């Protein structure tokens, strides 16, 4: 177990090196002038600044040296300067990361809650109409183009029915709460401003639901099949024989059986959540790193895309590592290779 975790930990730096190398190669393949991405246009005429930047990124050096410089800058947290915002990419990302995390965490909670509930109930009433409806609901969630379902739901719920507010994290002209965590819901609670909390929460609800729905399918399917399996095992039969009501057999005996596979799938759903977050943020004008990446991609802002890619990969690797560790910890029977 410890050896396995150590081996995984050791592999992380190598994977990061690989990720950084691929990002570097991609940035070298662009047809544009790399200098243009590093120096603001109006400073291009200033030879001093151009020379400094060239030296900093080693643009006058051969490829291997440039590569080493690139890695050196990365290690120091320098992801380059955004073409569009004229600010360090790392600063831009740090500023926008909490918005994305708030969205993804809320979506994860909604997706897991819906998936567990639907999976549990469809396993309990398998073969019933509820089972079919739950399956269709889950399947549609994972098949919908998220940038479309978000759009349609926004139109129906916000424009037509006015149940939820429009896009963004807060209504226009409302100041965000004082910065503590960057999560507006949490910060509003810390500030003790209940109406601001409600506003932040209602703005979060729809995008988080759209994103959570996308992962509900995977979770429902998994929970249902492992509970159905659990219900047919000997210990479930024993519990029934001892007179336990079906509800108790389900929750106390079969549900724990589903939780371990759920742990592994959560890492896997994280990939969906990142993909979904990029598109959800674009639809809901959510000021996170996803909409930043979309804007950067549209403007061919290479340093910004590269930065988001690297940060996203780090998050992805960490999520997978945590999943593996949690899995190995929860189920010592698994032989990890």
């Amino acid at each position, binding site marked *: 177990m410890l050896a396995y975790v150590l081996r995984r930990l050791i592999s992380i730096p190598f994977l990061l090196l690989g990720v950084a190398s691929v990002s570097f190669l991609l940035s070298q393949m662009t047809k544009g002038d790399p200098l243009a991405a590093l120096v603001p246009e109006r400073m291009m005429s200033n030879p001093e600044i151009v020379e400094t930047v060239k030296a900093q990124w080693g643009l006058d050096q051969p490829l291997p040296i440039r590569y080493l410089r690139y890695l050196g800058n990365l290690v120091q947290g320098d992801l380059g300067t955004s073409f569009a915002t004229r600010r360090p990419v790392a600063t831009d990302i740090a500023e926008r990361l909490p918005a994305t995390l708030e969205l993804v965490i809320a979506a994860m909670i909604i997706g897991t809650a819906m998936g567990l509930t639907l999976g549990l109930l469809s396993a309990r009433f398998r073969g019933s109409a509820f089972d079919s409806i739950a399956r269709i609901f889950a399947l549609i969630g994972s*098949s919908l183009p998220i*940038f479309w379902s978000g759009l349609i739901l926004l139109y129906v719920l916000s424009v037509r029915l006015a149940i939820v507010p429009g896009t963004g994290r807060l209504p226009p002209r409302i100041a965000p709460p004082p910065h503590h965590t960057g999560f507006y819901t949490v910060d509003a609670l810390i500030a003790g401003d209940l109406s601001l909390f409600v506003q932040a929460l209602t703005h979060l609800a729809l995008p988080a639901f759209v994103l959570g729905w996308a992962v509900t399918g995977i979770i429902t399917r998994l929970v249902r099949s492992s509970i159905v399996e659990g219900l047919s095992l000997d210990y479930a039969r024993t519990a029934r024989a001892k007179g336990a009501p079906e509800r108790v057999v389900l929750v106390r005996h079969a549900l724990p059986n589903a939780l371990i596979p759920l742990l592994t799938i959560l890492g896997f759903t994280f990939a969906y959540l990142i993909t979904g977050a990029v598109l959800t943020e674009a639809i809901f004008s959510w000021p996170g790193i996803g909409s930043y990446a979309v804007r950067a991609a549209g403007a061919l802002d290479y340093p910004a895309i590269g930065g988001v890619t690297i940060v996203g990969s780090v998050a992805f690797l960490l999520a997978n590592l945590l999943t593996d560790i949690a899995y190995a910890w929860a189920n010592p029977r698994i032989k990890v290779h």
Partner: protein
Amino acid sequence: MADITPAVTAAPAPRRGRQLRRLSRRLPLTAKIGAAILLFWILTVLTVQFWPLADPLAMVGRRLQPPSAAHWLGTDALGRDVFSRTLHGSIWSIPIAIVVVACAVSIGSFLGAISGFFGGWWDTIIMRLVDVTVAFPPILLAMAVAAMLGPGLANASIAMVIVWWPIYARLMRAQVLEVKEREHVEAAVAGGAGGLRVLRVHVLPLCWTPTLINATMDFGQVVLLAASLSFIGLGATPPSPEWGSMISEGATRFYDWWIAFGPGMAILSVVLATSFLGDGLRDLFDRRSA
């Protein structure tokens, strides 16, 4: 696994016909619906230019009309017929998904087979390459590659192949590793057959089932990712009626919901159809992984 061998090796024509019929009888209803939807889209791709539809690129009515008898899904901001554009959109999405899946399957399976069969350095290099590629969140890698190469459907397709090949490399490698331990392979090696011949004749024919099932499932996901890239502005460029870029036009005209409705339903139908069909095929052929 044994029951798939006849479907893979070349059987005499009449037997194959009977097998197809038996296969279609054993497929669940949902899988048949999925197959029918896919067939519909493929037929649409092949014949849509002969259908009595409005010109997808021409202004045929007043701008931004809601759905009516004349324009079933309304008209967009340039007065083009959305229904016609949605059907014509399949000409972009479906062939691209076919090409991307075919390339990802070929490249991935080739490298995976070499990796699994020969082992050693090949295995190490190819599998580390796989590890690094899957360390990227798929959409970010696709966005990075597509942005570096420049917008356009061809570049978006290259980006998607880069995202997808590792899945097939891993699948094929695992499959080859398992099959190469079997006795008939050992017998072939003992009989003096060369490495490549053993791989081609004795190992590979038994390795395709999971790959083909996965490819069916992935087809819909590729359509989805291609539309996502177009939606972001990295895929198809206007005025081509690609589904993703039509939805992004709809997103800028929020109150005219019908602009985005058709293409969204089209994407949904393809993704649902492939997961129905893929599920059915997996239940039939590959019960262990179901």
